[in-house]
Structures are given as C-alpha cells and as structure tokens.
C-alpha cells in the first residue's frame, strides 16, 4: 500500500483512570519517549468501554484502538475488569470475524507503576499499525 510520507498512525487509547492512565502519567513524568500517535481517553474503568466506542473510533478513521485497564484482580472497583475481559475476548474475535485486522485492536493490562510498559506498548502498537497503513474512514465527524 502506498502511503503519503507524512502519514502517522492515529491510535485511540481508552485508559482506566486508576491504573493505565496513572501509568501513562508516570511515563510522562519520567520523561519516557513514546510516539505521539496515541490519543488517550480517560475512562473511569476499563469496564466503561462500550464496544460501540471502539466501533465508532474505527468508523471515524482511527487506525488502531487500545483498551488498557488494571491487571485482573487489581481493579479499583474489585471486579470491573473481569467483565471487561469477557467482553473483550468476544470483541476481538467479533472484529476479526467482520474483517477488521486484529492487529489494529489491542487490549493490555497496565498498572499505575508500569510507565515503561505503557511507553513500550504504545511504541510497539504504533509500529504494528504503521506497517498496516491507514484504516479506511467510514463516516464524517458530526
């Protein structure tokens, strides 16, 4: 696929307030470098991530979507991410079934102390999405 040289992947990252967002914060305060391709959206819990959010992100032309939450067992709300895990297991398969490249969708458990993991995840994910090229936009923002 020929891509304009100026193209940079656009990744939407849903980060839970208590772990992954804190992890992203730590990456920042520790001055770690990671690509600016990610747009972080803070959610109260990874359980807040409605599959429609992800579908809408792809619809509006996101090249990749990352969902990040506390490690199972560490949820601020005790059990929220266990529900997320069931939902995301289904969703990854369903997106693949509909023909979305599974490499464009990523779920990670990132704790508040894992700034390095957040930076690494974004870097790896960006490179993977870059290799895939732009994802088709299906709707104008309104």
């Amino acid at each position, binding site marked *: 696929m020929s891509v304009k040289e100026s193209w940079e992947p656009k990744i939407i990252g849903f980060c839970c307030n208590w772990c992954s967002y804190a992890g992203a914060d730590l990456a920042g305060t520790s001055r770690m470098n990671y690509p600016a391709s990610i747009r972080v959206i803070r959610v109260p819990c990874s359980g807040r991530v409605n*599959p*429609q959010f992800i*579908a*809408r992100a792809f*619809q509006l032309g996101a090249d990749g979507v990352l969902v990040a939450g506390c490690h*199972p*067992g560490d949820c601020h709300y005790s*059990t929220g991410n*266990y*529900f997320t*895990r*069931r*939902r*995301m*297991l*289904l*969703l*990854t*398969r*369903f997106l*693949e*079934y*509909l*023909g*979305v*490249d599974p490499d464009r969708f990523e*779920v*990670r*458990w990132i704790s508040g102390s894992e700034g390095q993991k957040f930076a690494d995840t974004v870097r790896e994910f960006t490179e993977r999405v870059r290799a895939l090229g732009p994802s088709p936009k*299906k*709707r104008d923002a*309104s």
Partner: protein
Amino acid sequence: MSGMNQVTDRLRERVRELLADGKIHTFIGYERAWDPYRPIPFFATEAGEAERLIIDELCVPSTPKYMLDFFGREGVVGLLVKGCDSLAVERLLRDHRVERESMYIIGVACTGLLDRDKVKARALEEGWGAVEEVRREGDAFVLVTAAGEKELGPEYLMERCRTCEVKVPTVYDELLGEEVAATAEPRDFAEVAEIEAMTPAERRAYWERQFSRCIRCFACRNVCPACNCRICVFEERVPRWLGRKTDVGEQEMFHFTRALHVAGRCVDCGECDRVCPVNIPLRKLNRKLMKDIGELFGIEKPFMPAETEPLGQFRPDDPDEFE
C-alpha cells in the same frame, strides 16, 4: 408424528373457553389470511373469534414479542407458543419485560416448520392455488391445496428447525399435542466456521456486500425477543449512535451494535434472519458470538436463557490472552 394441525380443534375450544370465562382478554395465535401460505398473527378478543385460529407448520412468526404491546395493561393475555417461542418467553421474563402472571401460555409440541419462501415458490411455479390444510406424514409434509394434495419432503424444513433442540416448549400453562423427543442434528456452527476460514480481505468484502444491502427497516430489531429495551439505542437523539446517512459504515455500525447487544442473550430463534427483507444473514453474526461464548466460557447451551447472562458474570480463571 402427525403435525400440529391435529390440535386445531382443541386449541379453538380452549381459547373459546378462556375468552368466555374472562380468564384472558386477548389470545395471540394465527389465522390464514390473504396469503394462505403465510398465516399471520391473529389477536382474538371475543370467544366467537376462536374459530378463526389455526395452527400448522406454516405458522412461523414468533408470538411472545407482542406481549410488549400489552405492557402495563391489566389482565391476562393468552399466547400460542412453540418450542422456539418459549425461549423468547423466557428471554422476556428474565429481562423483566413481562410478568409470568400476565400470560396464559398454550404450548404446542412442534416437529419443525416449513420454509414458507421455498413452499410458496414451488406453489407459484406449479400453480397449486390456495392451501387449506397442512399435515405431517412421517418425515413428509402434506399440503391440501386447491390443486389437490401435494407432498413435500424434509428438504422443505426451515434451516433453523434442523438443529432445533427445543421442540416442546420449556414454559407453558397447558400443552397441546403429543410430546416429541428432541432429536436434532448437532449444532456445529458450520456456517460460522466457513466465514472464519476466509482471509481477512474476503471477510471484509463478504460483510460489506451484506451490510451494503441493509435498508435499516429495523425489522430484525423489532422481531427480536432479546431486543426489548424501552428506549432503543438507535432511537436516542443524544448521543446519536447511528447517523441518518445511508452508507455502509452506518449500516455496519447498526449491525455490529445489534449483534453485541444481544450477545449472550440471543435465543437463536432465527427470526431476524427470516424477517430481513434483503436477506442479510444476521444469524451468522449472532451465532459467531454464541459459538465463542460457548467455547470461551464453557457454556454448553448458550442459547438457553440462564439465571445470569454470560456477559453479566465472570470467573477469575477465565481465559486471559491479554498481556
């Protein structure tokens, strides 16, 4: 095996009694209407109307969803329910959209319905005229038509009936007809596996071809017993999840959302597939989710309404493929 028409007289008699005694104010069954090959739901409100009721292998539409039209109304509604319909009743009960006391359910044991489109096509081709009666004789169906008796083989059975495991309703107040053993071909999800075996590009093209036909009539939503929200997400103004524009992106958004909203709650009645005017294989979406729910969470019969839905619960030792 002799077919559901055997119980027609008994059905009429019971409905007449129930309406006359005031036990129910309405009975939802079927009548033969303008197209005799496609009986339609019939709402009997007077004892005299019981004579119009019929039941045979052409009476396909599911009745329980009509219960929502009686939401908040006093009195009891009578309902004719086949095996697949009884799962729809259970769905509505578990979702707290109907009360068991507001229904009087007459169950009927069913050995499989006819594919009305297939039958109608053959009838038109061979000029059978109106159909008066449908019987079952062994594995075959006998249609009494204006052009005489016509026999149809088991290949005229509806696709969804081939793997049906719920021939006798799971919930009823009285049961008409002989109980039949639930013998079914195994549910092997072959049609889902077929799509899974495609390359990502083929899958993309396949679904775009399907979704591009969608006219967003919402028939699939309206008929679905699991789609029973009082305010549907597609009718919300803010946020507007579904744009008005007709394009494949919006259509895909609709079908993606619909399938996931019934994930873990779908009873696999196949009504969405049947009512789609442009033949989008909606069941292949539902059944993909059903297959994965069964495999991932070890649920043997994911189409059976359970006390807690698969996505409303978890186990700490669920598979974890996320790092």
